[in-house]
């Protein structure tokens, strides 16, 4: 029965992926992509990747979907693509080559070693020394903490890039368009009701991350989504990007991470090492410091380049 569900999932995933890439209508393609993200989350659950399922549900189908929806509506390409400007005689070689790459990869899947190499035993053996119970959090914040630090920096680099795309008169201004809605309409109502729930869930997902699936990133995504909801309903406006508090909040998390890293030099003998007995508190401290920075950077990445001056 499990195999049947997996097969069904696989077929649906492929159908939706094909739909997403081939559909004529831009909006339909994006809708397909959002649905596809939700299905991917199911696939991750089937592959025992609950942490990834959370991330996929939050990012793949949530934030990326919103990003693409916004883009589609601003580009006004909801009309049909209007024929293919691509050279149609190159479609056949493109299809053949893509199929060849796909086929080669499939052969690789079956050529993987019979006894799969794995680091699970290493992680299991060292999990106790990290004092957290979620092995993925242990990898993310102890064994390979550098990658997590870099991940936070990647987001900031992308934000620098996005901001650099504002037009000169609007540099330093407010990102995104001013949103309006009926003050007593259903949207404003949703934007008042949903965020408290979302914030509680976000905080819970963040807090539970040390021992169970979850963590700062998934929590921050939920918080960012709730912030955006309030903005979309016009209940609040995005802050101008020249604000010092905003910029300090953006970099505070990564800087705190680096500071804790250097603290480890003194107390535990290596950069990004933690002294025994303080591992879990320090890991939670880092996650807590990253949470607001990540929430802001995710929200701001979705809002895009500044499009307006400082006045609301």
């Amino acid at each position, binding site marked *: 029965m499990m195999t049947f569900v997996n097969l069904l999932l696989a077929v649906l995933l492929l159908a939706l992926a094909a739909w997403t890439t081939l559909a004529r209508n831009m909006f339909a393609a994006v809708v397909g992509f959002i649905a596809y993200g939700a299905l991917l989350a199911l696939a991750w659950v089937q592959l025992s990747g609950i942490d990834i399922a959370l991330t996929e549900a939050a990012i793949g189908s949530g934030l990326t979907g919103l990003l693409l929806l916004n883009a589609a509506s601003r580009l006004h390409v909801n009309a049909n693509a209007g024929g293919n400007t691509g050279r149609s005689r190159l479609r056949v070689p493109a299809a053949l080559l*893509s199929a060849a790459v796909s086929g080669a990869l499939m052969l690789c899947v079956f050529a993987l070693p019979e006894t799969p190499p794995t680091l699970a035993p290493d992680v299991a053996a060292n999990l106790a020394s990290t004092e957290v119970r979620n092995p993925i959090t242990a990898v993310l914040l102890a064994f390979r903490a550098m990658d997590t630090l870099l991940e936070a*920096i990647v987001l900031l680099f992308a934000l620098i890039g996005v901001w650099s795309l504002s037009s000169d008169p609007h540099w330093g201004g407010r990102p995104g368009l001013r949103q309006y809605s009926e003050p007593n309409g259903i949207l404003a109502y949703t934007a008042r009701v949903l965020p408290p729930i979302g914030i509680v869930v976000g905080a819970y997902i963040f807090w539970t991350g040390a021992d169970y699936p979850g963590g700062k990133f998934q929590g921050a995504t939920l918080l960012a989504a709730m912030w955006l909801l309030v903005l979309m309903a016009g209940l609040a406006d995005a802050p101008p990007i020249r604000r010092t508090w905003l910029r300090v909040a953006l*970099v505070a998390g990564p800087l705190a991470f680096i500071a804790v890293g250097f603290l480890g030099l003194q107390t535990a003998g290596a950069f*990004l090492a933690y002294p025994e007995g303080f591992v879990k508190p320090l890991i939670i401290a880092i996650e807590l410091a990253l949470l607001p920075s990540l929430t802001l950077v995710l929200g701001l990445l979705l809002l895009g380049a500044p499009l307006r001056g400082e006045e609301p």
Partner: protein
Amino acid sequence: MPPVPEQAVTSAGGLLLVIAVLLPFVGVLIGIALRGVHARRVALCTLPLGLAIAIAIAVTVLQSGAQLTYLLGGWAPPLGVALRADMAAVVMLVVVAVVVCGIGIYACDDFNPARESPGPRASSTFWLLLLAVWGSLNLVFVSGDLFTLYVALELLTFAGVPLVCLDGRGDTLRAALRYLLFALLGSLLYLLGAVLLYGAYGTLDIALLRAASVPEPVTWAALALATTGLLAKTALFPLHIWLPPAHAGAPAAASAVLSALVIKGSWFLLIRLWFDALPGVVTFSAAQVLGALGAIAIVVGSVVALRQARLKLLVAYSTVAQIGYLFLMFPLAFDAGSNMLVHDAALTGGILQGISHATAKASMFMAAGLISAALGHDRIADLAGVARAMPITVLTFAVAGIALMGIVPSGAYLAKKLLLESAADSGQWWWTLVLQGGAAFTAGYVVLVLVNVLRRPGGAHPVIKRVPAVSEYAALALAVCSLLLALAALGPLPAHLISNPLAAGELLATLLVLLGGVLLAQGLSLHPLFAAAPAATMPASGLLRRSAGATGVMFARIDLLARGWTVACISLLVVALLFGGLLFFGARG
């Protein structure tokens, strides 16, 4: 073989590697927080500190004579991530630090947020991006883990893309978007390779992979995919889709960063992959094809460079050609005896070539930018009188040109000698032709520019705006570095190699290269060097020039076709499948 015991422990002074990576990143973070004019100040403070760190790493490695290792968090690979700096990484760290400092000084005046032009947005962003590129490159050089390297590549891309479109005009935005999409595709292919390697060997650590990897289908597929992805990011012809348009509109300092530095990241990672992670998986034929792609890049890039009407684009296409040069070491370093790539003179020559290119190309873009700023245009045909008005800048261009040509006295001369010797030793005489021919092509476009700037101006004084002297000297200093740095960087070289660079044979070779360059420039360029060649003297020359012109137009067409999105993607997949096939059948046969 890398010393195995070393990888398991942190070596003394290893912390310097962490600082080398994090210092520019912290600079970016502080720059974001302080914004505006402070971003420039933070960057200018970070530059000397970073240079000092790079030199400290070099001193430490030279003193200990072993590679520097740092285990992050005290966790040894495969569970943890190690930072390592061998000699090649150290050389790259130092050279990149020098180039970044040079670019910083050059751009000091251009990108001043307090000034009207180019405005606070472009100027403060530029400084953040410069630091971002620097930190990402340092991470590429020292990281020993394929996934951390993936993140480093993406950091580099995200820092590089906004540099392309700093001025915010439509065509640069389009170039930036093309660059981003193509580079992202490249990163994904690289990541796919890394994923397959993890599936096969359960580790992403380069030293452990070297010990564990064996020639088998999954490894071949991984190497082919990762190589193709990295070639796309390095913009090796025919995967140079983004490079020329990106340089057409970018500010000179940004062009210098992109052309001299950013592409070196993926190039260096390719060296890591081929020489350090999977040297035994590489086959003779795959290495030959990689070199052949380089040779094609040299020919097409050079011919198209000679056909350009604008100086900036000429320098951009010369980058396309020079990138080809950087791949000639791969076939030459293949050791037929052990059937694998080895660290030998060819690799030394290749790295030397890379650092000469980094410094020389940065200074060449700066010189081109200064000329363009002073004249208000960069049409090659209208450069007459520039030599008299801007002697230092023209000297910079000439010195950088000498360094790129690889003639006496430059670091690239040594690099070329090393590669020529490898070619002779391994009996691969065909690469000798490519090496000498490439030098002649380089001589061609350098001579083309120099002849034009040395002309007497026909009318009024051409310079409409004075350029800051500090920028001129920064560019000159980098050009001189390209002559000297290479000598200092690599330490002892085989004595016979530099026995007598002024011997008659060497001088003759140099003259031949220059003469070849003059002929190529005369035949192929839009405006012949010696326009007044009397037709009566040689009726054949007209025919020759017409056929050369037709060849030039054909190459320009090929270049334009190759840079179309669909064609470029198809070439990418063809290259991937080609490498996969070569590895598969090469190992069999």
